[in-house]
């Protein structure tokens, strides 16, 4: 103690306590399906509970079907979402049609909930230009961003645009993962939005891994929710395997931002049950079954299914039928995607500049000649 009192600043204490306010993830139902916060649970009508369950079942069916398509070689790059249904659908459920969405590559389900079609999702994965038709249709969503962090700075711009347009009850939504929080753009995006007190809601889906790099390598911060502090943005953790908690927190964050209070940040604690992507990632190379097991037990569908079954709002038969129905639809969507017209290089070239430059115009001619052969 004597030695300690020599310090003017107790950096050790600051370090060991700074995360405390951010380490209490909101939860409504626990992994056994027990309701741990009745007051919050009671806010949901039976219909809404069923809707949320259906959305998760839909996302899982989409996941399973895309993995199937992947094995058949009918998709390109695809990021599996197994295990993250509560996080993705809970947040998506809080979005309003007028909100701008900035998804990353793992956020196709939210994008589709916001107005893109499943077919467009498939076209995105396959690499076909019609994947972005939703933008042209007026859906307020941007592209599934590949460059980690870029979506955050762009979201700040959209949020400022909303504010300048004086659009009421409208926010910009953006996603990244635990790994994505290490990017400078992640920080710049939050800080810009906060400096302008613009209506942005920043989501971090912490699924424990950035490909093979564990969450703890990304940062010594104990939570990702506390990353908002650097920019004066309030952050909070939520149990991302609990769709009820996730939805309520996302909605609060949205309300807060929409009311003109500036941005909010939400970290969902979730887990990537499977591989990072369809491109040959093998989690057994870098993580253990012992680590995975408790997370599998936290499966978001299990716990809500239990609650709904207890309330006689759900049964296996209903779920099986839904899944079959969804999958049939996805198969049709894939057929539609596969029927998309062949892409022409001459078309691409026409869309490099608003008016083709002479060089590009010459190249268009060249390719049109080739293409008509």
């Amino acid at each position: 103690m004597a030695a300690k009192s020599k310090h003017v600043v107790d950096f050790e204490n600051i370090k060991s306590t700074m995360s405390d306010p951010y380490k209490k993830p909101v939860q409504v139902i626990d992994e056994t399906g027990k309701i741990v916060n009745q007051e919050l649970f009671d806010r949901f009508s039976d219909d809404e509970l069923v809707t949320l369950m259906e959305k998760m079942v839909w996302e899982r069916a989409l996941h399973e079907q895309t993995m199937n398509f992947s094995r058949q070689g009918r998709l390109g790059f695809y990021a599996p979402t197994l295990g993250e249904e509560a996080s993705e659908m809970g947040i998506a459920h809080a979005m309003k049609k007028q909100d701008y969405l900035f998804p990353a590559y793992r956020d196709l389900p939210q994008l589709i909930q916001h107005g893109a079609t499943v077919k467009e999702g498939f076209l995105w994965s396959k690499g076909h230009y019609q994947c972005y038709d939703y933008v042209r249709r007026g859906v307020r969503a941007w592209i599934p961003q590949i460059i980690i962090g870029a979506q955050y700075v762009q979201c700040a711009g959209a949020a400022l645009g909303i504010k300048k347009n004086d659009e009421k009850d409208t926010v910009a939504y953006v996603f990244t993962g635990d790994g994505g929080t290490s990017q400078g753009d992640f920080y710049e995006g939050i800080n810009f939005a906060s400096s302008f007190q613009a209506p942005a809601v920043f989501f971090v889906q912490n699924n424990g891994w950035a490909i093979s790099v564990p969450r703890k390598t990304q940062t010594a911060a104990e939570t990702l929710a506390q990353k908002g502090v650097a920019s004066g943005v309030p952050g909070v953790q939520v149990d991302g395997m609990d769709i009820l908690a996730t939805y309520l927190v996302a909605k609060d964050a949205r309300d807060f931002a929409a009311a003109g209070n500036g941005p909010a940040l939400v970290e969902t604690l979730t887990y990537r049950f499977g591989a990072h992507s369809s491109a040959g990632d093998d989690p057994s190379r870098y993580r253990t079954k012992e680590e995975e097991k408790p997370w599998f037990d936290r499966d978001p569908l299990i716990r809500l299914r239990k609650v709904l079954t207890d309330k006689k709002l759900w049964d296996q038969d209903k779920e099986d039928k839904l899944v079959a129905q969804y999958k049939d639809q996805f198969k049709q969507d894939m057929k539609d995607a596969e029927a998309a017209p062949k892409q022409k290089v001459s078309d691409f070239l026409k869309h490099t500049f608003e008016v083709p430059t002479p060089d590009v115009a010459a190249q268009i001619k060249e390719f049109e000649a080739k293409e008509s052969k």
Partner: protein
Amino acid sequence: MAKLTYIKAITDGLDQVLQDDPKTLIFGEDVGKNGGVFRTTVGLQDKYGTDRVFDTPLAESGILGLSIGLALTGWRPIPEIQFMGFTMEAVDSIGGQMSRNRFRMSGDVSMPITIRTPFGGGTHTAELHGDSLENLFVGIPGLRVVTPANPYDAKGMVISAVENNDPVLFMENLKLYRSMKDEVPDGHYTVPLDKAKVAREGSDITIVAYSAEVNEALKVADKLEKENISVEVIDLRSLSPIDTETIFNSIDKTHKVVVAQEAQKMAGVGAQVASAIAEDDIMSLDAPIGRVSAPDSVFPFAMAENDWLPNADDIEAKVREILNY
């Protein structure tokens, strides 16, 4: 009409676009109250308010990311990057994002963003404040890279850049800011973004240049005229795309060409011009293509700048060499 400096002409052009289109926004570091560290945006915040002309936090990737989000929500952003050296902090926003969006959306989504940034040597400023970094950007499909060489073009081109629906990197020459004055029309006019200009007609040899180097070339033309050597000077104005037609027309007349740039030789624009000639108009030439540029070192310490930068003497020597080939 008034005699304006290069920088005043840009201010005038910005004033014009702010007035014409309520969706235009100017933002960046120090562009608001201070009117920019060079005073290019001076007076504009007072005139159009802090909603239209405003300062941002100090982060270039943030500034250009902001531009993209603003463009998506219907605005026409005119961000400033305080010096071109700092564009290196924001290359993804330019090359990975804004320039790709029209392509991604099959032509239906425009990114009408004009990034203004000062560049160019000769002002003895700090490191990374004078470099000519155009090569980082001229290879990016979907991006226009332009730079005016005189006040008239400066105003007309900045108006065109803002009105254009493609993203434009608008490079402003630091040394010319206050060293050059010209008659500049009042009000609205445009100068095309993709047309090189015959800055001076001639028949014996062509010099292709851009930005400050155009003025060096014009000095050479003046000087050689006294020896009855007739030099044609072409001001590229657009570095990407390059207007090869104007260049080829000139070479078909002169059959000799020197390409001059302030940047290091390894940096692309001169090479791009030379290669276009070598591919499509080589048979018009009756001498090798002459190149004038800075040597391939890092942009030098301020005290050595004058020796390093290519000037009229260097161009003259190269012109004589090619003429006497």
